[in-house]
């Protein structure tokens, strides 16, 4: 796959920069059109990570910040695959995740929501995908929380994801939501996505087959990164 370019990003399925109902975007959105670049070495390459970068509990949010107890909340496993747009797995790539605790409070010095910090919950983790692009981690289901946008906006329960892929042009941050959450249709951040199918792709279904009887429920969340072109009659970067 070395040296092959990425598919053009389909920006019609991503939220645009300016989405006035998500108020913070109003003054943080560029007004000039983005300048389109064909892939060069700067975009086709990207950082790689190995198991030496990670610790043994990094994908276990129930234990990675436990101080003499376990976090409060509904125990869940989140699993899925990282694929590209051709459906091929993306192996060995870094997946990072962060979230609020079961009460909807983040362990962050800027979060002042009245729900309490959980002394046994940090709220972040990371893992590498395996050879088939699979990842999994264990956590507690995050709670909904209010935020200042309109006077009564609530974020649906969600987990933030950061994914790398093989080239820096695949870099992606997104959020995973939970099947059946009644707050989903009311969220201005989710509603920023103009494409209904793209929005649905962020909602993880309950996966009873992956749950652990008498222990944890499970949700499945696949993440799709941009595809790379095959090398059929490829424009060679160094010139034809």
């Amino acid at each position, binding site marked *: *796959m*070395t*040296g092959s370019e990425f598919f053009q*990003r*389909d920006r019609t*399925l*991503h*939220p*645009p*920069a300016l989405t006035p109902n*998500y108020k913070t*975007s109003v003054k*943080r*959105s*560029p007004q*000039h059109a*983005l300048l*389109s*670049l*064909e*892939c*060069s*070495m*700067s975009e086709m*390459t990207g*950082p*790689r990570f190995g198991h030496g970068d990670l610790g043994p509990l*990094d994908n276990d949010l129930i234990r990675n*910040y436990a101080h003499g107890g376990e976090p409060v909340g509904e125990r869940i496993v989140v699993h899925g695959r990282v694929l590209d*747009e051709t*459906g091929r797995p993306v192996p060995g790539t*870094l997946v990072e*995740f*962060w979230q609020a605790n079961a009460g909807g409070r*983040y362990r*962050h*010095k*800027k*979060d002042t929501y009245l729900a309490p910090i959980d002394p046994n919950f*940090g*709220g*972040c983790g990371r893992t590498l995908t395996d050879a088939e692009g699979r990842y999994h981690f264990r956590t507690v289901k995050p709670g909904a929380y209010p935020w200042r946008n309109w006077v009564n906006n609530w974020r649906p329960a969600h987990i*933030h994801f*950061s994914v790398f892929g093989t*080239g*820096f*042009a695949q*870099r992606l*941050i*997104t*959020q995973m939501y939970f099947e059946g959450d009644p707050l989903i249709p009311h969220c201005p*951040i989710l509603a*920023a*996505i103009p494409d209904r199918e793209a*929005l649905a*792709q*962020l909602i993880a279904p309950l996966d009873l087959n992956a749950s652990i009887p008498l222990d944890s429920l499970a949700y499945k969340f696949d993440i*799709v990164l941009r*595809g790379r072109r095959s090398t059929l009659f490829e424009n060679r*970067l160094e010139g034809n």
Partner: protein
Amino acid sequence: MVQPLDYIRETASQTAGPYVHIGLAPGAAGFAIFENELGRDIAGPNAAGERIRVEGRVFDGTGAPLRDVLIEVWQANAAGIHASPEDPRHGEVEEGFRGWGRVISDFDTGRFAFETVKPGAVPGRGGKPMAPHLNLWIVARGINIGLSTRMYFSDEPVANAADPVLGLIENPARWPTLIAAREERDGMALYRFDIRLQGVNETVFFDV
């Protein structure tokens, strides 16, 4: 009807939010959880080339600095090679050079700063070299999809003038938004680079 094209679609982006530090820079969020927080050291101890410092702020459309922004840096080493298997010369990169890092703005002042080595020219398309540059990816609350830009160096006027990416910018008045100004401080090269998300002198952002 025709045969279906069996591609699947890219996952949509969502904002990194105000608490991005928890996931990507937990030390800054106020707690230590990982033995190894990633992205603290861009160049590593063995990298050849000139050691440089970059300082700046990211401004919103009202002129206020963002105090909750996270920037990722991706760059080649001083020989213009990326530490990535996609680069055919990656085996020549110095031990410990990753060329990637994470930088956050100060919660009070919005200032960011990082140290690295100055990259070399990188092969571009069609054999045209690209002037030395850093690739920057910017995420924050209120940014729905990460913003890509580049930082070029003011002491490379000849290479910058021939750079194929800078050459795509139709309005020359926008060039300076991508060029960091060099000065010296305590015997070290310091580059000042401010990013403006919107308004007068809006930074050039790329669809890569």
